[in-house]
């Protein structure tokens, strides 16, 4: 139980870049950042959580009650080099992360279904893009006048036809993140420490 875990597996893909952007001075000083994923319903719980880390030599540098991601750096008097001392709890972090993404996906799913099933996507406009341009008399205009109005409206026309795609995109992205965190959880419970 007193085993020490090396740095391997404690970092999360992409976090290196995030850290460099968020905490340039900490990265520069060579202090290692540790990450936990947790959300809290009560602010007393969040306070208690930070206090426990603080007491055991970890300074909370970023994260809020609802942010999920909690960043810590080791203060001088800490004896531990990891915030998790067994494999199960280390893996549990990925489980919580996966659940967080699943919650996001689940909250966008009804919106996506509503949009897809309510017929608010205009199939006709996709086949006949002219319908997406609302400027009166646009198609009767000529040369420069036409191009100016046409190009001006094009971004809006694109939004009109493609804005609904945001939801399927977000939902699939969240499911992808959830799956990735889940597989990370699975592999870290099974791998030999």
């Amino acid at each position, binding site marked *: 139980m007193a085993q020490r875990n090396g740095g391997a597996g404690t970092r999360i893909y992409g976090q290196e870049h995030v850290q460099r952007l968020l905490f340039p001075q900490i990265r520069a000083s060579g202090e290692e950042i540790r990450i936990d994923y947790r959300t809290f319903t009560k602010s007393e719980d969040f306070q208690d959580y930070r206090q426990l880390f603080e*007491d055991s030599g970890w300074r909370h540098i970023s994260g809020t009650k609802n942010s999920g991601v909690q960043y810590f750096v080791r203060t001088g008097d800490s004896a531990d080099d990891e915030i998790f001392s067994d494999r199960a709890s280390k893996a549990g972090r990925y489980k919580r992360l996966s659940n967080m993404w699943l919650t996001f996906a689940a909250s966008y799913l009804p919106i996506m279904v509503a949009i897809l099933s309510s017929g608010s996507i205009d199939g006709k406009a996709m086949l006949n893009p002219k319908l997406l341009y609302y400027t009166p008399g646009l198609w009767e205009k000529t040369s420069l006048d036409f191009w100016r109005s046409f190009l001006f409206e094009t971004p809006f026309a694109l939004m009109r036809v493609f804005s609904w795609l945001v939801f399927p995109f977000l939902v699939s992205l969240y499911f992808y993140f959830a799956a990735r965190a889940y597989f990370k959880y699975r592999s870290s419970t099974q791998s030999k420490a």
Partner: protein
Amino acid sequence: MNREKHLPLTETTFYILLALIQPSHGYAVMQKIEEMSEGQVRIAAGTLYGALENLVRQKQITPVRSDDPRRKSYAITDLGRKILKADCQRMEHMVMLTKTAIGEGRL
């Protein structure tokens, strides 16, 4: 033998329950465990927080009133005591078997 579904306890859980016979806050639990185990068991902050949360959910420990507004205190419940004793008996039996084997020179 009708075994508790929570058995066997992990070393972490066992020590936490043992430490919480005396109500304490998280960091005190951590220190007490290190002392009781003669430095053999050190529970890191993230692991301890998760373990306390789980034990509260399973009603083996419960939050109690704390004098310190910044730190939550916990105490073992009756269920927790029952589980701790049951696990102690489970281990006693194994220890007894092993000691017998040693005594008879089989080990």
